[in-house]
Every structure is written in structure tokens, then in C-alpha cells.
């Protein structure tokens, strides 16, 4: 058995049925019969109810006037409709600039983190080198450090480099990837050992191994990693707030705080409108990527 830190080592239970072999087919359990379907749709209905209602409230609040937001009893439909909350966001926040900054920061960080995460996980899963367990341990343990305790120390370091109010100052300190390394390594180790070995025997180099063997079998997890990274970077607040001074580099969450009144009464309509506007791009990305989860798998199955 593997060391305690090599989770899901090749001998883990999912490989306990080697007879199944490497061939993978897309899920086909749509044939469960009527009863299963009914249960499924009921489940969906329940999900919709629990998750949708608060979401619905966020959306309709973004279309309500302030007196309408705080009405007792609550109103389920804006009366009057206040689409001006959205134009208010545009007028009071240089939305375009913050949006651009958010896109730059998120895009760079996502590319860097996914790359670093995959490469690190590859090394930790398939290569033997001294200190491997220690390195993996350092990766996991860094997830335990809350950012409240890193910001002051990092601030004074980055400020001394003269990186305040620059994209580099925001991006570089956030670029280390622990979560993704852990996730991808966990997944790589669950890949069928026989395929990896076979490729090795064929003399596949690092590039071929990664792009032709390992990644094609990893799309769903890679997509999940990418999605979660995008979301986290998109919503990153504390660090970019400390690093940035103006809309030259500050991302959207910082811009949106100007919609709130920090002494006295906040009109939540525009705040919710800003929230909706900031969330939509990510939801679109999700819609696109969740389809890739399945497509990628099919492609991987063919190549595998």
C-alpha cells in the first residue's frame, strides 16, 4: 500500500477490477426506466425550488426599487419594475474598465494556474524524485493558510518590489496553485496503471505522455479545475483590493463596492444588479465548459 499521502495510489479500489480494462464508453443509464426518470425529475424539481428561490430573489431584487425591496409581506414580483438599477451601475461605476481588469486577471491566472497545476500534478504522480512526498505535503498544507494571515507580509514584500497598483502585483502572489495540484494528482493516480505503463514501454516522452495519454483521459476533472479556478479568481477581493489604487488595475468586485453606502442606507437594487452583471459571464463560461466535460470524455475514450 502507498504512503499515507499518496492518496488513490494505483492500487486503489477503482482499479480493483482490472478485467474491465481501459475502454470507456459514455454513460448510458438513460435506460433506467420510467420510475427512475420520475424520481430524477422530482429531484430536479426539488433542486430547482431550493436553489432557485434565493437566486430568483437576487435577480428580482436587482429590478426592484428600494421601498419595494423591503416590503412586508415580501413581493414576488418587482412593482414597479426598476431596470434603471442596471443603468445606475453603468453610470456610477466604470464597469467597462473593472470588467476588463477582471478578465485580464482571471484569464492570466487561470492559464498560469491550470498549467502549473497540471505540470506539478504530473511530476507528483508519474515521476520519481527525492522529496516527492514532502513536496506534495507542502502543497496540501498551503491550503490551510488563510489569506488573512498572508496579506500583510506579502503586501510589504510586493510593495518593496514596486509592484503596487500593477497587474503583476495582483497576479504573481496569487499564482501558486495548491488546490488544482491536489485535484489533478488525485485524478492522475486513479488513471489505469496499464495504459500509463504501456505508453512508457512505447518510449513516450513527457510531451506525448501528457498530451496524448494523460490529459485525454482527464478532461472532466481538468474542466472542473478550470471552472473553479475561474470562479475563485473572478471573485478575488481582499488581495486585489490592497494592491490596487484605481480602476487601472482593480477588478470588478472592488468596483461594485462603490454601489454600497458605507455609512447609512444602501440601496440594494443597484448592488444586486451589479452582482448579476458580474456573475453572468461566469455562468456562460460554465454552460460552455460543462458540455466540454462530456465531449472531452468521448474524445478521450476514442484516443485511449
Amino acid at each position, binding site marked *: 500500500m502507498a504512503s499515507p499521502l499518496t492518496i488513490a495510489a494505483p492500487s486503489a479500489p477503482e482499479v480493483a477490477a482490472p478485467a474491465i480494462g481501459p475502454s470507456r464508453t459514455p454513460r448510458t443509464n438513460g435506460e433506467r426506466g420510467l420510475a427512475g426518470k420520475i424520481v430524477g425529475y422530482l429531484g430536479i424539481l426539488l433542486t430547482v425550488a431550493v436553489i432557485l428561490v434565493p437566486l430568483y430573489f437576487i435577480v428580482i431584487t436587482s429590478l426592484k426599487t*428600494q*421601498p419595494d425591496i*423591503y*416590503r*412586508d409581506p415580501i413581493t414576488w414580483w418587482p412593482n414597479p419594475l426598476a431596470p434603471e438599477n442596471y443603468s445606475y451601475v453603468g453610470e*456610477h461605476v466604470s464597469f467597462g474598465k473593472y470588467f476588463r481588469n477582471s478578465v485580464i486577471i482571471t484569464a492570466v491566472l487561470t492559464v498560469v494556474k491550470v498549467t502549473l497545476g497540471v505540470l506539478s500534478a504530473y511530476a507528483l504522480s508519474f515521476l520519481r524524485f527525492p522529496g516527492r512526498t514532502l513536496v506534495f505535503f507542502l502543497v496540501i498544507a498551503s491550503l490551510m493558510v488563510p489569506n488573512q494571515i498572508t*496579506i*500583510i*507580509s*506579502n*503586501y*510589504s*514584500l510586493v*510593495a*518593496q*518590489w514596486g509592484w*503596487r497598483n500593477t497587474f503583476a502585483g495582483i497576479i504573481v502572489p496569487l499564482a501558486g496553485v495548491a488546490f488544482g495540484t491536489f485535484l489533478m494528482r488525485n485524478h492522475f493516480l486513479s488513471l489505469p496503471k496499464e495504459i500509463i505503463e504501456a505508453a512508457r514501454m512505447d518510449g513516450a516522452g513527457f510531451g506525448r505522455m501528457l498530451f496524448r495519454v494523460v490529459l485525454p483521459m482527464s478532461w472532466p476533472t481538468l474542466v472542473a479545475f478550470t471552472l473553479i479556478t475561474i470562479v475563485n479568481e473572478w471573485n478575488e477581493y481582499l488581495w486585489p*483590493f*490592497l494592491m490596487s*489604487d*484605481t480602476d487601472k488595475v*482593480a477588478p470588478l468586485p*472592488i468596483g461594485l*463596492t*462603490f454601489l*454600497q*453606502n*458605507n*455609512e*447609512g*442606507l*444602501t*440601496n440594494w437594487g443597484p448592488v444586486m444588479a451589479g452582482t448579476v452583471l458580474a456573475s453572468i459571464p461566469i455562468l456562460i463560461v460554465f454552460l460552455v465548459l460543462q458540455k466540454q466535460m462530456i465531449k472531452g470524455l468521448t474524445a478521450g475514450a476514442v484516443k485511449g
Partner: protein
Amino acid sequence: MSLSRRSFLTWAGATASVAALGGLSACAGTGGSAAGQEGDGTIKFWSNHPAKSKDVEQKIIDAWNAANPKTPVQLIDGGANYEELAQKFNAALTGGQLPDVIVASDVNWFNFALNGATAPLDDLWTKAGVKPDTYVDTLREDYKLNGKHFAMPYARSTNLMYLDNAIFEKAGLDPKVGPATWQQFAEWAPSIRKANGGKPVLAIPDGSNYLDWYFQGMIWTFGGHYSRDWTATFTDPKSIEAGKFLQDQVKQGNIAVSNDAVNQFATGGASALLESTGSLTGLTASAKTPFTTAYLPGPKPGAATGGAGLSVPAGISEDRKLNAVKFIDFLTNTQNTITFTQATGYMPVRKDAEADPAEKMYLEQHPNATTAIRQLNENTQPQDAARVFVQGGGKRIGAALDRITIGGEDVATVFAQLQDETQKIIDRDIKPKLSN
């Protein structure tokens, strides 16, 4: 043993080395060289734009920049609230580029001043030709420590009692006149409750939302205090009496301690409200029914001031400090304080603002805003040290007030604990740093 920031944050420095671990004893006093940090020629103003004042701040700054092209001001978003701004400033103190002017709340300015992070302003006032006595006296004197002033008043508020006109009239009371004392409030309460279907008379924000600030005026009217000078006075019989009064009013249903007092009042869930002047503009737009603002009950003084001032970092060069003070003087001059306060609902900080003809006209048209200014001169005094100067004081008192109201715990017991905790912090963290 003590050491300077540079050496205890060594690992953060470019000079990071293994020696840093042993650096505990290295007391190299490199922090804040005598000359002070030079800037890039612009005055950096870190603001959280209290009461959504970004636009009006920028407008005033544009006017300054037109008149002072050599020392232009750059407005920088310092955070979503006072806490964030303090966080950002504290981060900058560890080695970043310091700003020239910061917004500091009633709680934060003191900690900055006590720890030498912000500069005393009196000498700078003389050099810059600022006349301190043109500021409203109580507002200016709020920022005094060891005989020097460490901030200038800017976005200053006080608490007000908001009264629902219709309910008060229905109860046979004149909404233009609030209760003169808290005892009178208690006498009026049954009829007001009846007029509003049994709903509580007065909503006050709970301990997570600055109940400690609103209760401060109440405790004063009973002859009590959170503290006098540097002695906590929660166990003073008069302080306890005030606590018991609050507890009793909550029990009777006359006062509701609310997680969202403003909206409880705005939706008709209470007939009156204790809130900051800062909520005036918002409430005017959102309240269901017309309301009137009144003084907090006496005997005077029965209301605390609050809000924020402007401070100058100690670590910047003399030239930068001088320009910073000149800019603050401009930002809060008679004309600009009028512009600012009309846009936000804060109180004018200069004495002669009230005499300005345009302001006079504005106040005549906005009687609710006038209440705050009149109350400032008649019904307020500086806050108690135990709330604003003791680290975490407001939150600590707020939690105790939660316990006696929401939790129904014994007032004397809770206040005795509060007394001990507060005094311990004063003795440990503050007294050693006071020079007199």
C-alpha cells in the same frame, strides 16, 4: 525586548535571510527615517467615500487641481468601509508607499495616533495658515491626544431619533417634538404602541450594528458613562441604572433591538428609530410614511457624535505633510463642507457654514437636516474612551448590550465583566503609551 517593524517582518523584506529567525534581538530602528517618505508630487487621498461621496469628492478635488496644478490630488479608493481603509493603511505602514491623506473613523484615528502612524497637526496648521478655531469646537476637540490634534473633522455624523409622523399624531403627540427625557419616552410608549397595532415604539440597531454608539447618549442622560478619562465606569450605579432601563424597555416591548432597524422603521415595524444622520438621505427616499427627526432625549447631552476625520501619515516628508494639510483645509472649507454635507447628509464642520446664505436657505427647506446641526451644538459631547479609544471597545460594549437585551442576562453581572475586560486593556495597551 522589542524590535522595529522592519526587523520583525524581515522575511518580508528584500533583505530576507536566515538570520531573520535570530533577528528577534536585532533592534535596528530603521522604521520611519527622519526625512520621511518622498512622493511623486501628487497628493494621494485614500478615501472610502463615506455616504457614497465619490462624485462630490472628485468635484472638490477637480477644483483644487485647477487652482494647484503643482500639487494635484489623486483620489484613491481606500476600501468599502472604514475597516477596510484602516486595513489598507496598516498594510502600507509595513513598507509600502504611504498616502498623504486618509479617512479615519472615530475609532481608527486614535489607534493610528497612539502608535505614531499619523502626524500631530498643530504645528502644520500654523505653517499652513489653517485656523483651527474655525472648525466646530466639539468636532475638532474629538481628535485630541496628549495635547495635540491628530485629525481634522470631515464626514461627521450624530445620532438622531426618527419619528413616524402619522403614528405620533394618532397617539395624540406632536412628532415635531421628541420625548424630552427617556422617562418621558417610557410614559409615552404605551399610547404609541397602541396607535401602531402593538408594534414596538423604537427600533435601535443591535450590538452587531453599533448599539454601543446609540446607547452612549442614553447612558449619559442617566448620569453614567462608559468611562471617564482612562477609567472604565460600567459598574457605576448610574451606568447600571441606564442598562437596566434599556433592558426593561426591551422587555416591555417599547424598544426593539433590531438586526435591521432602518428597514424595520421604514416598513412600519416600529414607530421611531435611532439612527445616524447618514441614513437621512436614504430614508427620505425609502420610508413608507413621512417622518420627522428629533433630538435624542435629554437631559443634555444625550447624543454622541461619530463619523470620520482626515489624518496625515507620520512617515511622509514635511513638504508632503504641509501640502496634505493645505488640501484638507480646502476640502473642508466653508464652501466645500456645505457642498459635501448637502450631498451626503453629514454635518458641516465649519462654524460659519450655518451663516452662509445658500446653506441657510437649504436648511430652511430641509428641516430634518437642521435638527442634526442644532443638536450638535446643544446635545452632544465627545465619545467615551472605552468605546472609541480602547481596541475593539465598540464591539465589546455592543456584545454586552446584546446580552442584556436580546439575551436578557443580568445587567450588573454583564457590566462587571465588561468593566474588568475594558480596564485590563486600558492598563495594558494604552496607559504605557500615554505621555501624560
